[in-house]
């Protein structure tokens, strides 16, 4: 390993160094607003460096792979980190978040996401995943006065630790079966004579449990609503977007293996996708708490991504990555709206709190409407283009039934997304709303997300080209 190897890692190093500096500065002279702004500028610098980086595909110390693919995700996660800090601006100040620790932890988790996305070996995979998880164990309970935080933190920690155990065991078994930790060789090594070796089957099962937990696939999704509900809104936003997206980013290069000898487990994964979709959609339909609704909605969206992932090929990979980008922005934006609407007394809870929002905070109402439309996959938003690609990849792969299942799930999901939109536009005649009033320009991060959602929805070509370019360098 030489100094030149670090060239591809510069954005991560900026995040890492910045986070450490802020953490240390917090010990001496904590200043919330200044630290948040510093954190945002560090993240944006990392994002800018990653965007303009021209590093060639190259292995670094045998566990990470630099190159356009890694650069793309480093830029995305840094941007998400900056946006998360942006939506925490007022939220964290009102709740007296410890500035140094908060900003540093958010940046550290972005480092973890970047590591995970560029993992080229199971060691890097585990390292990145654990770096994300450890940060989120703390971030979930960062608002110590919140009555729901301890339950959420405890659930996440216990279940997460068990999942990590499964994952570590799975990785160990993979190593035992194949003698390598390199990806994707480790995965293809488990196939002998067109069949998965017995040890490999156990290894994959263990691996799937660990990954399924992080992605909240059925039946490992039970933690999602409780943790989402208890964690501070900006943290939930990052948890729902980045931490899941990074796992997918690491999984996409493994997808090629499914077409080969691992085809045996495809029916199982298909069933998982359908069950995940059904669980997410049907449970979201009956929720009355906005964060639980978004939690189940995120479960269902993981089902869509799994459909695209199973479709495989360049189309499937493109669909997964495009969906991840749009979904991350939209989810972070919606939690940003929740953060903006939070008062020092608490966050928005019941859906009925949103009634009449359009006439009190038109800006936030418009942003929320755009996000919900995008989640529902209504045209002119990024979500529609994303769903279009997912259905297209499924049809192209011959999985027409999966596409039809996706269509049915979309239809049911209209029930809860549009119900919320209608509430936002219905005039409020009864009691005053407990939500904070937010006048324009509201929150820059939320505005950025909503504009981006529309722009990608109307002119998706540049992003599509970009995604195609990083997949076939």
């Amino acid at each position, binding site marked *: 390993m030489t100094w030149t190897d670090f060239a591809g890692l510069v954005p991560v190093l900026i995040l890492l160094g910045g986070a450490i500096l802020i953490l240390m500065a917090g010990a001496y002279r904590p200043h919330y607003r200044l630290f948040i702004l510093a954190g945002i500028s560090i993240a944006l610098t990392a994002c800018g460096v990653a965007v303009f980086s021209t590093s060639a595909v190259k292995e670094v110390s045998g566990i990470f792979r630099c190159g356009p693919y890694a650069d793309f995700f480093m830029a995305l996660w840094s941007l998400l980190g900056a946006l998360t800090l942006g939506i925490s601006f007022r939220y964290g100040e009102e709740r007296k978040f410890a500035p140094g620790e908060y900003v540093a932890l958010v940046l550290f988790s972005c480092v973890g996401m970047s590591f995970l996305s560029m993992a080229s070996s199971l060691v890097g995979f585990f390292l990145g995943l654990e770096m994300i998880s450890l940060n989120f164990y703390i971030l979930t309970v960062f608002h110590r006065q919140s009555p729901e935080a301890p339950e959420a933190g405890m659930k996440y920690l216990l279940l997460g630790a068990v999942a990590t155990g499964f994952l570590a065991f799975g990785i160990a078994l993979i190593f035992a079966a194949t003698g390598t930790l390199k990806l994707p060789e480790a995965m293809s090594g488990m196939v002998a004579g067109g069949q998965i070796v017995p040890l490999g089957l156990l290894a994959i099962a263990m691996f799937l449990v660990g990954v399924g937990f992080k992605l909240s696939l059925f039946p490992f999704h039970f933690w999602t609503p409780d943790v989402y509900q208890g964690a501070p809104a900006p943290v939930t936003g990052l948890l729902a977007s980045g931490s899941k997206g990074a796992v997918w980013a690491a999984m996409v290069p493994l997808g090629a293996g499914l077409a080969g000898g691992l085809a045996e487990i495809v029916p199982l994964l298909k069933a998982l996708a359908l069950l995940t979709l059904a669980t997410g959609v049907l449970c979201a339909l009956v929720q009355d708490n906005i964060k639980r609704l978004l939690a189940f909605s995120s479960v269902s969206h993981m089902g869509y991504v799994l459909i695209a992932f199973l479709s495989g090929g360049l189309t499937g990979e493109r669909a997964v990555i495009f969906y991840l980008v749009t979904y991350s922005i939209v989810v972070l934006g919606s939690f940003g709206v929740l953060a903006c609407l939070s008062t020092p007394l608490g966050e928005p809870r019941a859906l009925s709190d949103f009634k009449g929002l*359009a006439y009190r905070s038109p800006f936030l109402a418009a942003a929320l409407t755009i996000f919900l439309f995008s989640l529902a996959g209504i045209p002119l938003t990024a979500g529609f283009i994303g769903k279009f690609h997912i259905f*297209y990849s499924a*049809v192209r792969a011959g999985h027409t039934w999966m596409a039809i299942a996706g*269509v049915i799930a979309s239809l049911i999901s209209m029930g809860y997304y549009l119900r919320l939109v*209608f509430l936002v*536009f219905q005039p409020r005649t009864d009691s005053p709303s407990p939500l904070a009033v937010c006048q324009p320009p509201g929150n820059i991060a939320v505005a950025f997300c909503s504009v981006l959602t529309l722009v990608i929805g109307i002119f998706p*070509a540049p992003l*599509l080209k970009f995604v195609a370019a990083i997949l076939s360098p």
Partner: protein
Amino acid sequence: MNELTFYPLLSLLIAIPLGGAFLCVLSRRSSGLCRWLALLSSGAVLVLAGSLFRLPDQTGWLLREDYAWIDTLGARFTLGLDGVSLLMVLLTALLIVMAVLVSWRTISEKTALYFSLLLALEAGLMGVFLALDLFLFYICWEIMLIPAVILIVVWGEEGSLPAVFKFIFFTIGGSLLMLLSIISLYYLHGEQTGVFSFSLEALRLTKLSGSLELWIYLGFLLAFAVKIPLVPLHIWLPDTYCKAPTAITLLLSGVLAKTGIYGLYRFAFQLCPEAAAKSFAWLSIVALVTVFYAAWTAFGQSDIKRLLAYSSVSHLGFIVFGLSVSNRTAMEGSFLQMFSHGITMGAFFALTAMIEERIGDTRMERLGGLWGRAPLWSFFFLVVALSSLGLPGLNNFVGEILILAGAFQSLPWLGAVAVPSILLAALYILRLVRHVLWGVSPAGLIWTDVGRREIFILVPFLILMVWVGCWPQTFLDPLQQVAGLPFFEGAVALKGGVLP
């Protein structure tokens, strides 16, 4: 096509309402300004649409526009105007102006939002009637739903939410299936030719096996049949029509229903001609069932809005019948009838809005004996009613007679079955007229005759009814060359079918 192609006139038809909607949002402090802005921009669209009225060339197109859009997908921003879309664009532009005028006084709160949504709806409708790229069409198709449902939820009657959800569930369910059909066509065409495109003209050349074509056709058919609606997909309709503010009901019945018929002809028939030709027998039977069922149900209604809702469905069924008897005369009649139906229904719901403005609801028992009290209003009501039941000399007669003449040429038996439907229309319409205009006024009915604004709404309708009724040639001329019809006929003839 001609020199006007250099000006993006068709894009303007979409852009002007959007600009108007934006201005309305900006000037939300003053309701008066919003109203005038809405009237001005919708009026400008009407003038522009009127100025496009001309005869088509050999290809059938009056105007076309084509811009690059999402090149990675092969989706382009392609708009085209032929005789059928011209009539639909005119109708949309006219009815939006009328909807603005109808809601002039009734909408006093959140005016800016109301009028901007109305204009956004107009932009979506224009997009649906002009798009020649399936991706663009699908986007406009879904987008026009959003302003419509928000308008119903916020300004509709109490308890409109279940009705709206029924509406959404049916329409979006249909359109998502259509999306799958579009994706499949797009994929198959790309595989066959190596060119990935959403252009209607390219996709209709896709070679499809029989069963696959049938599935794709069904996806389109369901989406459009929900919107029209054909029995049994109509169950969303009565509640939605009744709970919506009357200006929106006017648009739902006058224009939104036409998007279904238009889509059926423009996309479903063109893209899957063989499956379409096979389905004609079934489609015409379903259409006739719709005609009779809706007319029968209309007869039993006691609420004017509900009666008109069913009457509208019955007439729309007749138009679909005209499309599905595979005869050119009947097809022309159907296109003309789409326009006529919009005029009549628009006028009917405008009159209903006036009733609602005066007495607060639309139950028939609250009305009666208006002929003596408000002669001018009653005159308009009578003329519109007569037009609706197909009186010669008024608009509906022309379309109906063309459809029937065509039907008798190709399917005499079905034509014979269709004739009594006109009788049924006379039954329920005359019952309505008798209740409203004659009989005894209920106690305490206070009724002022039409004012200046209302006359301004009704007179254009009246002129158009007489114009179409007495000189239909003006509106039939643009239909002489309908783009895509030769292609469709050719495709059907190739497969051994006939379309005389």
